[in-house]
């Protein structure tokens, strides 16, 4: 029984971590879409918003059906509220992305002066023979090699935050930004045989 409980909690935490990371990735991508005035990134944020809705429902259902005891109800309510907060964060990110999708003239203030806005956004699929397969982002040194920064990694329905210890897999789609000169090198690195 105790073991089963632990299993259920592990599953709930896994789902929560995905909610949390997806909502945070959405904020990053939303700000990037504003800075770079990129519809591509804004659309990815909108897509993730829908995906979040699904994740969030699954998370709530799991929490509600984990047959907790009466005295544990408060701890489960706390969990559910955490989920609601991630959803709210995701909504806020989607609202930012909408500014780009509605063709609102990009005000210079929105560049937020983090990086120059002369950068472009590109994506590339990791194909056979790519030296990136099975490397962590830290080992892959994408920025050193190509000048492009990885903003997100799309893996099936999911999108992952580019954490240094995240391992790149065959079939991943890397979304990156940087100066136009780096785009070809970046694509060649991810899909060596398609250029």
């Amino acid at each position, binding site marked *: 029984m105790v073991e089963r*409980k*632990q299993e259920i*909690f*592990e599953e*709930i*935490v*896994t789902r*929560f*971590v995905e909610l*949390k990371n997806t909502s*945070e990735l959405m*904020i990053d991508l*939303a*700000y990037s879409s*504003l800075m770079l005035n990129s519809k591509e990134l804004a659309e990815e944020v909108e897509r993730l918003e829908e995906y979040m809705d699904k994740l969030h429902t699954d998370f709530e259902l799991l929490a509600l059906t984990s047959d907790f005891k009466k005295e*544990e109800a*408060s*701890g*489960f*309510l*706390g*969990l559910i*509220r*955490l989920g*609601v*907060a*991630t959803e*709210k*964060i995701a*909504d*806020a*990110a989607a*609202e*930012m992305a*909408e*500014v780009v999708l509605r063709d*609102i*003239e*990009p*005000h210079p*203030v*929105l560049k*937020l*002066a983090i990086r120059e806005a002369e950068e472009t956004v590109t994506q590339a699929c990791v194909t056979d023979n790519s030296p990136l397969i099975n490397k962590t982002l830290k080992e892959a040194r994408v920025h050193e090699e190509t000048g492009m920064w990885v903003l997100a990694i799309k893996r099936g329905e999911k999108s992952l935050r580019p954490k240094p210890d995240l391992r790149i897999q065959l079939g991943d789609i890397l979304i990156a930004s940087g100066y136009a000169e780096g785009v070809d090198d970046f694509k060649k690195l991810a899909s060596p045989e398609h250029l």
Partner: protein
Amino acid sequence: MPKFEKIEYKPIPVHDLLLEMKNLSELMIDLAYSAALFNDKELAEDVIELEGRIDTLAYLLDMEIMIAARDAKDAETLIGVSTVASAADKISDAAADIAAIVTRDIGIHPIVGEIFEKVEERLMKVTVKEGSVIVGKQIDELDLAARMGVDIIAIRRNKDWILDPEETERVFLGDILITRGAPMGIKEFKDIAEGRLTKLED
């Protein structure tokens, strides 16, 4: 009843206001999750206090936008700025909601924190105490990332917050450092900052 700050117009550039709202709201999310998962009341109260700061910034930014809009074209470009500011405000509200799980004694099942700690990095609040070897040192001299995989993401000095501190920022006695890293690393760093460990090892 919370105490509300009186809003008075101050000429601060829109850019500065927006950037501070962005940075603060992001810090608040990190702080709020840590407060909730590790049931840290003090940290939760910090988050709620920062929420008030964001509200003030939002008012100031709205006023700047009203002054800046002279015609329809201005209004068209400024609406994007106000939408983004309001989204940052919503993010900070969500962070405050998370913090409220702790301050209202709802709490989160303790097993959740334990499991979470295994899969994700955590945040810790560390107060720099007398006798610590890091007092007076610049952040880059400490080389925390390489030594123990720890990052200082914010410094609380008296009532002020220094977000994402520069490498050349110095650490003072009494600073409260918000650090992020693997549990082992930040535990070691806490011992160093509080003066229990007196050697920075490589």
